[in-house]
């Protein structure tokens, strides 16, 4: 049977090519996602390891948690004398104080904006670091700097040039050397700025403090022992980690952001495979029904139903494995493309050679083979049921009617799905919405053969205007319910996801626009760097406050805290100045009370947690660990949304518990009578030496947020586009196969006078009709799910549901045109059929 399967697969290779391609494309997506995320993880590991090479132990201030949401927590500065204390501890060979932190670099007035961070660090010689001078010399004194050679090359910086480096403080420094790590000329996606210790302390405004002390053990001293000795000697206040551990922690923090990407990519890859599964099932169904006489002959010759079943599955396995192998190979190439796409949308992914692990290959192969096998299961079962007597029958076998049980199951699932969606949305239960979506999907799959032809019949009515070809196109779409359903379903799935994402995106933009309404500030300053916690030097707010054009300013900061085990966000505000730049509506307590400590909660959170003014909330904050924080007020939800979190502290409280010294936003109200444009120019001039400070008015701030949403959604939509391409292959394939099946019908039509042009338009009309069915079903389902999701996510007040009509129309237009394109090849093939051969085909 295996030999028969191989022979069959080879004999029908032209019919199976597109199936193979569908498997390969789906698997390529899976493999590409895995390769990309593996590669990024490995490169990040390698980077942080090399950068920390040589250091045995690192002493830092203790913190309640090391990193949250991919951002490393800033720790307390260490006193200057600690380095000496460490050096004096027995077993320590060498110790060195280090000051480092995030900063910005400006060249000739232009900001340098790598995808990742700009790191301001302390220059060291080996053995403390893996950085080596490429040219020039080490920085010495308050006006010298060494840059990584890659950044220098990218921005045309030479030794002797002057650059502006800003962290908390901004300084102009002369480039005296260029450096690299190991074989690389820098860290990918980052800019490295090395100065001497004093300069680093000044830039980071640490005074005499340092951020860590690097330790190299004395010869013959075991690092593990030294670590515990040192920890004991220094006490609880300090954390001693091995250099590699510290590097790993940094790498972990960086990798956390990539793990989201992996989830998104794999989810999209799964969608692609699912679409491919429809196509595979369809192809096998058609090819086998075309071969039913051959199968019956096999049965008549003594093959058991089980053997037929096995031979079909073996054929599927063959296609699955070879397709998956091709897909895996293509996926490695796809990883490059994906990385380029992701980087273009602002994700910081390191560049470097790709990592292909055996796990990637295994997962991709198994996924491809499994999907193909499962998709072929139904057709194989039908094939095994072919009766031997079919071999003697001249007529075409009767088309299977959808079975009663399947119909009932389908309607029940559909009804349950719709009811579940409605109920879950009403109850604001987002998990319930997901369950409803799954039920709805299963119901639609079961009912596809009933619904798709009816839909095709209805939406295909205008085709009758094309005359007989249009009429026949509609008829043949309706005539093959199962086939039409599977082909349209694959495309509909992709389109449903795209319209779902676009409605969600439109609504998210509307929400962020609505949040701004609570703000009365004329202008706001934000970091252009998109750092998660913001990245504005406090100096920016200080300078702006002094301007005569400015009436009031208020800064906000963001931080992370641990809520039980979960990372959560909080916002710190200045209770005195915030009301001058925003309409803050309190439903209980007083914002001013924040100054004395405590927290204000958003109303929905207060209700959810059952907290009232005067109650205590346990918050784990980075510097001092778990604190009992008193609730001093409750804020209306809209006000809290404008501040981006439901937990509000005062800046004073924030400063006690966080070392981060960067503002997320500075809200500015202009003085009376100051023209917005003039005010803006004044602000821009005042902060011009902070390259990341961006002065925005409300409209621009909304637009900037919308652009971020658009970028993320753009990437997702683009990737969903691949699923749609697979579905379009399905249309081409199904049509091409059905033309083989309809050879005689086509021959007859041609003999009685159908022109080639009419024939082509008939086939193209079929393709377009399937696409339109998919568009109608897909967009309707997508919109419904998006609405249910948004309602399910709503609290008391409904989230706005914005349907981006223009965008959806574009999707619809493209899908229909693509359907037309999918029909071109089969149409050409059909028109080329020789009338005589077509008639003669028995």
């Amino acid at each position, binding site marked *: 049977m295996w030999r028969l399967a191989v022979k069959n697969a080879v004999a029908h290779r032209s019919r199976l090519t597109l199936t193979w391609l569908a498997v390969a494309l789906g698997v390529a997506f899976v493999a590409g996602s895995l390769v990309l995320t593996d590669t990024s993880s490995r490169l990040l590991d390698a980077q942080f390891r090399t950068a920390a090479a040589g250091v045995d132990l690192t002493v830092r201030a203790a913190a309640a948690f090391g990193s949250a949401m991919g951002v490393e927590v800033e720790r307390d500065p260490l006193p200057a004398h600690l380095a000496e204390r460490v050096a004096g501890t027995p077993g320590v060979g060498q110790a060195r104080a280090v000051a480092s932190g995030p900063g910005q670099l400006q060249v000739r007035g232009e900001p340098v904006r790598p995808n990742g961070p700009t790191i301001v660090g302390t220059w060291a010689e080996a053995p403390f670091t893996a950085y080596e001078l490429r040219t020039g010399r080490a920085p010495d004194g308050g006006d010298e700097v060494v840059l990584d050679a890659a950044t220098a090359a990218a921005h045309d910086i030479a030794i002797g040039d002057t650059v502006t480096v800003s962290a908390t403080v901004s300084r102009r420094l002369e480039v005296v050397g260029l450096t690299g790590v190991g074989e690389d000329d820098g860290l990918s996606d980052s800019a490295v700025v090395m100065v001497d210790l004093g300069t680093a302390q000044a830039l980071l405004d640490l005074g005499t403090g340092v951020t860590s002390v690097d330790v190299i053990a004395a010869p013959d001293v075991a690092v593990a022992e030294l670590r515990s000795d040192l920890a004991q000697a220094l006490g609880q206040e300090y954390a001693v980690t091995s250099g590699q551990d510290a590097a790993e922690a940094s790498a972990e923090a960086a990798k956390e952001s990539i793990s989201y990407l992996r989830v998104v990519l794999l989810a999209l890859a799964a969608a692609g495979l699912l679409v491919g599964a429809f196509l595979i099932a369809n192809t096998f169904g058609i090819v086998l029904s075309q071969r039913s006489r051959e199968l019956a002959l096999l049965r008549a010759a003594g093959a058991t139903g089980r053997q037929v079943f096995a031979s079909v599955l073996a054929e599927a396995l063959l296609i699955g494995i070879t397709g998956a192998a091709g897909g895996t190979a293509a996926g490695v190439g796809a990883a490059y493309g994906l990385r380029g796409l992701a980087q273009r949308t602002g994700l910081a992914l390191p560049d470097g050679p790709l990592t292909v692990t055996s796990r990637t290959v295994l997962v991709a192969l198994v996924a491809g083979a499994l999907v193909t096998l499962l998709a072929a299961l139904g057709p194989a079962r039908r094939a095994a049921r072919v009766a031997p007597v079919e071999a003697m029958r001249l007529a075409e076998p009767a088309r299977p009617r959808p079975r009663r049980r399947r119909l009932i199951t389908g309607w029940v699932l559909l009804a349950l799905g719709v009811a579940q969606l409605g109920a879950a949305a009403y109850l604001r239960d987002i998990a319930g919405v997901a369950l409803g979506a799954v039920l709805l999907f299963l119901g639609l799959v079961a009912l596809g053969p009933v619904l798709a032809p009816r839909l095709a019949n209805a939406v295909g009515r205008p085709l009758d205007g094309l*005359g007989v070809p249009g009429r026949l196109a509609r008829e043949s779409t*309706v005539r093959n319910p199962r086939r039409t359903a599977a082909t349209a379903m694959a495309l509909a799935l992709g389109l449903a996801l795209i319209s779902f994402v676009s409605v969600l995106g439109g609504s998210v933009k509307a929400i962020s626009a609505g949040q701004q309404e609570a703000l009365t500030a004329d202008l706001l300053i934000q970091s252009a760097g998109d750092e998660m916690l913001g990245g504005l030097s406090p100096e920016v707010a200080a300078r702006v406050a002094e301007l005569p054009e400015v009436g009031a300013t208020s800064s906000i900061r963001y931080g992370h805290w641990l809520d039980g085990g979960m990372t959560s966000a909080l916002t710190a505000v200045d209770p005195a100045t915030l009301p001058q730049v925003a309409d803050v509506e309190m439903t209980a307590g007083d914002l001013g009370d924040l100054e004395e400590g405590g927290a204000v909660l958003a109303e929905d959170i207060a209700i959810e947690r059952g907290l009232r003014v005067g109650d205590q909330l346990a918050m784990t904050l980075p510097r001092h660990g778990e604190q009992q924080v008193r609730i001093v007020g409750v804020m209306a939800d809209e006000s809290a949304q404008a501040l981006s979190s439901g937990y509000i502290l005062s800046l004073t409280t924030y400063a006690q518990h966080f070392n981060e010294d960067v503002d997320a936003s500075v809200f500015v109200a202009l003085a009376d009578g100051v023209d917005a444009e003039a005010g803006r120019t004044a602000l821009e001039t005042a902060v011009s030496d902070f390259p990341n400070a961006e002065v925005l008015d409300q409209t621009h701030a909304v637009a900037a947020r919308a652009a971020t949403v658009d970028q993320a959604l753009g990437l997702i939509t683009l990737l969903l586009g691949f699923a749609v391409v697979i579905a379009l292959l399905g249309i081409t394939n199904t049509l091409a196969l059905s033309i083989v099946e309809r050879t*005689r*019908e086509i021959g007859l039509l041609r*003999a*009685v*006078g159908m022109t080639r042009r009419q024939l082509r338009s008939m086939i193209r009309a079929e393709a377009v009709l399937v696409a339109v069915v998919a568009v109608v079903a897909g967009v309707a389902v997508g919109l419904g799910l998006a609405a249910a999701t948004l309602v399910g996510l709503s609290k008391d007040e409904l989230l706005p549901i914005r349907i981006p009509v223009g965008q959806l129309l574009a999707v619809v237009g493209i899908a229909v045109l693509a359907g037309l394109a999918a029909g071109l090849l089969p149409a050409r093939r059909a028109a080329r059929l020789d009338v005589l051969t077509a008639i003669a085909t028995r």
Partner: protein
Amino acid sequence: MTTVAPPASTSLAVAAQARDVVKTYGQGEAAVRALDGADVAIDSGRLTAIMGPSGSGKSTLVHALAGLDTIDSGRVLIGDTELTALSERERTLLRRERLGFVFQAFNLIPSLTAAENIALPLTLAGKRPDRAWLAELVEMLGLGNRLDHRPAELSGGQQQRVAVGRALIARPDLVFADEPTGNLDSRHGAALLGFLRDATRTLGHTIVMVTHDPVAASYADRVVFLADGRIVDELSAPTPETVLARMARLDAPASAIGA
């Protein structure tokens, strides 16, 4: 559009002719000369049967006459239209406007009703059938109450009658029937043949029928015998017996059964 010759039931005008037609399939050693100087004229207004053993070139000759196939040399004329000079599209339009076809099997489009199948050549040309003519045809074919049925719901005989209706609806100059009774039992076959003969005698149509069945051939006004790609004999006013006798004389395998 080329001129349409009026159906001439009384005169013996020529509806179609093949002149010294050569058609070879395959190349080199495997080459088969399907038509080797075939020369025949089809009289207008008559039922002509083409007979011959398997491989004698019957089907090839009909396909060449109908413009379904190209020829290597010689001439084929429908009326006075030279087929060899026409493009593929012109030949398609000629088939649609001036020729009708009845095949042995698979004559109808499964998704169209009987009425729609009959009207197909006209609707493909964007025309409507002449109501009176359609009614007359349906009446004669005895399809009155089957018009809204799809082919799958019709018997084999009914299907073939629908096919004949389709072949005649555009009042073609010439109808080609390729083993039209091949799939029918003798009773239905006789009815269909009777109808074809009536179509020539009372309606003045010209029909060319390929068959290997002497009984079917006996319905014709004239039988043309083909062997090895050439016209070798012909017979007017045939009976099954005379046809059988001529067949037996043909220099070909006697067991000329099956198409």
